């Protein structure tokens, strides 16, 4: 997935509810890349979309996948705790 595609996917999944500047995506991706959590690779864009152009595609690394699992679990536990606190287990 390339940077602009990521922006589109996030906007689509959140129905635009996350207000963010598109440029801030790149420092985040570069940090993840520096830490070895994602890997960026240049490749030709599909000829139908952008003929003759190259894009940098990011993919998650095994280390990134492990980190994602850990962070997801953290987030799940955090949301459970907050829900329990706010709604007393009603949710």
């Amino acid at each position, binding site marked *: 997935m390339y940077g602009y595609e990521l922006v589109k996917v996030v906007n689509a999944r959140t129905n635009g509810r996350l207000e963010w500047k598109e*440029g801030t995506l*790149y*420092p985040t991706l570069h940090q993840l890349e520096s830490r070895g959590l994602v890997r*960026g690779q*240049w490749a030709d864009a599909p000829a139908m979309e952008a003929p003759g*152009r190259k894009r*940098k595609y990011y993919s998650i690394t095994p280390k990134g996948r492990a980190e994602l699992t850990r962070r997801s679990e953290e987030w799940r536990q955090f949301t459970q705790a907050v829900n329990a606190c706010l709604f007393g287990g009603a949710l």
Partner: protein
Amino acid sequence: MSGADELIHLLTDRLSPDPELQRDVAAELRAHLEDCAAEFRQAGQSDEQAAASAAKAMGDPRELSDQLWQANRGRMRLRGVLRWAAGAALLPAAVAAVAILVLTHGWPLRPDLQFGSSWAPERLTKDQAFLLYGDPQARSRLEEAKSISDRWPDNPVYYGNYAIHQLTVWEGINGTPPPHLAEGLAMLDKGERIDPKNAYYNYAKASWLIRASSTLADDPKHTYELRDARGQVTTRPFSLITIQDPAMFRRGLEEFRRGLAKPFFASRSIDMTNERLALLPQHQKFLDVVREAEMTAETILPDLQGWLGLGKSLSAYALARVGTDGQEAIGLTRSAVAMADQMGKGSQTLIEMFVAVSIRATALASERRVYAELGRQNMAKQAQQELDRQQDLIRDIRSRPSLDRDQIKHTGMLWSLVTPALPGLRANFAPLRTAETWAVTQFALLELLAVLVVISAALAVISAVSWAINRRQNRPMLLFVGWRRIARICLLSIVLPLAVYGVYAYAVTAPPDAYGLNCSAGRVVMEFAVVVSVVCTLLLGLSYTAVRKRCEELGLEVPPPRHLRKRWIVVLLASLLALAVIGYEIYWWSWIPTARPGEWAGPWYEWAGVSVPSPTFPSSFGVILGGTMLVFTAIFVIVEFARLLRKRLGLFRRTLFRSLSPILSSAVILVAIVCGYALSRAESSAARQIVGDAAMGFTNEIEKSDYSLLRQQFGTWQAQDAAEMAR
């Protein structure tokens, strides 16, 4: 500069210390802006509006610039260190790797063979080193021999070795009186005191005294016939002797008779060489064998011309005395035969033994004539029969099977040059041949690495100059093509071709009946050239492709890709060369079993100073084909790089050159470590087996061949002489 370019420049300006990263981020942001603007255009905005909207969607430029710098500064620092290390350390490390190979294995580049052999002085004890090399202050072989004798003054071998060195200097021209007679006799007297049972000193004194007191000339009236080892009859003249100093001549005869009474005869120089060889540790390298052969070849033999002269003088004097004292004449010829027997039994080299054979033949012919002149025809006939038996024995030994042309093909370069075709030779050629092949392969590897290091260094120098004279934006970048790409380049261009050739080389080198370099050198040189061409072409080609791809990602102008169909001339020529190589391989393997020595070995024997009459085309063709392959590769590479000389490709060219240098250096280090180690192990493994029948040289050629029978016969004759003298 467009608005988008200005924005990108603003966002990435703080990344400028790492031009590659700056270009990478800029290219990524540009792609984003183009995608975003395209979507705004689709929504109905004009080009200007779409560009402005895309820029706005990116957010605050200053804030984003700072975030990009924060996100990448750690990476920039690490890449800076790696870039510095690649630029500063890889090339010196590659040079060091090649230098280590040169110092340990690159003997053809070094005239000093002692260096790099596994028995360099520092690996020996002090006494061993002294015995091998003499006093470090010694300036000549003579001083070296003297220093060893001075250190162990009672050792007969060391003194004998010194005496032979010194007498060689003092003995003067054969046939004239020795110029240093008194000094020579004093030296021989001392030798007799140190080595009292050795007849050598007495015979040497006799030779010097008789030479100084008489002259020899061919007798024009009397000749004798001798059937040589090939069965051909040759006519030889007897000698006439003129005595100028009878008293000195008698002293010479007395020394001769004293020598006859001694139990053995030994010229000590071969003993010295054998003692030195025994000190040496097990062979570890082919170089050790070469050094050993060199040491053996440096052995100074005793005055063989003097021995021959003594034998002739004794025979001539016997013939001169036959008219006045027949009994003395008979005794003299018999004694000359006995001296020859003693010398023959004590001979340690073939040349010494053949000198003894010649003295014996002259003495027996003289004995026959003495008896004939005394009218004792039966005894004359017996002397002739004894001479015939000697010649028959030599002829019989020489007629035994020796190295035939098929065996010689498997001996290897060194053996084929130093090993005479001795009858009944008992030898195992495989270890030396294998060690030699691996040593030469190491040399070829070294040549390949040296070429790559030179190219890498040249590219580094060009890049340094280019970096210095160009302004910031145009300076060449050292690209991170990625470890995976470098690993792939090394695997495909170096590891794979060398592994394939290694398996092939092992398959044709390992069998017991493998062909030696003496007949396969032409083919092997061609194969080395093919491997070097393939490795260089693939290495430079794949590296070029990787750098080009990376430059393209960074938005640099790169040369268009060239497909094979556009290089049909190159493909055609390469295919023709490949076909020629395959054809030559097929031809060589079918031709070599029936080839005659001169056909395969011509250039190599001629190089060694041995002339051969036969044509040498098949062997030379391999070298010519290999040379053509290398020239073709060099021209191809030069032409390909010449395409980059266009001005618009300047930054790409400079970046390519700067990035190629570390890639080539990495490849050199990898190959030097892996292949250098593997070849060194293979060579050592073979070299350690060079013992017993696999070790052969000047000092043991009699024992290793059927000429040992002749020496045994000399022993029998000497025993008969001793019994006769006792009667």
